[in-house]
């Protein structure tokens, strides 16, 4: 029992060097903008930007230092008067579409955006296609 305890204590005091920096977070990482309208814009934008070092979180939901720095960038830029779309474009120019949770509409993603509509149309036609052909007692099929 005491050997186990010693081992546990040794483990407690021997954690390896952590790959985390020691600086405090950037000013706007955890501080809101003074103007509520601007803060709302910034918040809405941050919720759609992806954290680069996390496992699938937006920068608004992450405590990682780089996410905090990105929040600082976003809030600073909004405070300086830039539009959310301009900031999103700026970030996409650096990191590609991966950094935005709002996928673009281009050749590669056409199927993504149009797929559900096509599916609905196809399904509707299959289920109710008989309506077009004819008269009173037409209906769907069980």
């Amino acid at each position, binding site marked *: 029992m005491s050997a186990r305890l010693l081992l546990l204590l040794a483990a407690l005091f021997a954690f390896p060097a952590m790959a985390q*920096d*020691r600086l405090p977070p950037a000013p706007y990482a955890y501080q809101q903008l003074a103007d509520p309208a601007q803060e709302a814009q910034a918040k809405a934008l941050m919720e759609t930007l992806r954290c680069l070092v996390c496992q699938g979180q937006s920068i608004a939901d992450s405590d990682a*230092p780089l996410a905090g*720095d990105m929040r600082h960038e976003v809030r600073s830029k909004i405070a300086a008067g830039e539009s959310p779309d301009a900031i999103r474009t700026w*970030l996409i*120019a*650096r*990191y590609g579409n991966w950094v935005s949770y709002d996928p673009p509409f281009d050749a590669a993603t056409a199927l993504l955006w149009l797929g559900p509509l096509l599916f609905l149309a196809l399904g509707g036609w299959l289920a109710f296609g008989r309506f077009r052909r004819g008269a009173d007692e037409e209906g769907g099929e069980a």
Partner: protein
Amino acid sequence: MRSRWVLFVPLAIMGLLFGAFVYRLVTPNDTLIRSQWIDKPMPLFDLPPATAGVEGLKSSQLADGRPRLVNIFASWCIPCRAEAPQLEALKAAGVPIDGIAIRDRPEDVAAFLRENGNPFDRIGADMQSSVQIALGSSGVPETFLIDGKGIIREQIQGVILAENVPEIVARLGAMK
């Protein structure tokens, strides 16, 4: 009697799904996020010195006609230490190297340079990762190959290995 082919639609959709699964199992997930800011000019910045005894880094200093490396590192980044011999080798081969230290305290940078050597001509302190973000860099260590006009030509993510050193020297030599 409903048309026979309709009943095969679910099976066909499953087939497509499995195609995606097989593709993903065969070509595993590439989790690196590469910078898209390639073949673009270096963003404008003016960083203070990262520690006592070194010069700070200005973006204008990177367009002096000599192709160079910009190495993004941090003292808290353990793999960055593994890169130190390669950076020394590159410096010995005549490659100018500038450093940007991310989120680092001056005393920690000083300790890092003492332990691993200083191959950098200048080291800028990027306390809030703003230059890192402007470059499209997503971690440390990363190295950017810049040509003589200050245009970013390539990004290397991760530690530079010994076998990559001659290639880097050659690539920089081919740039203007």
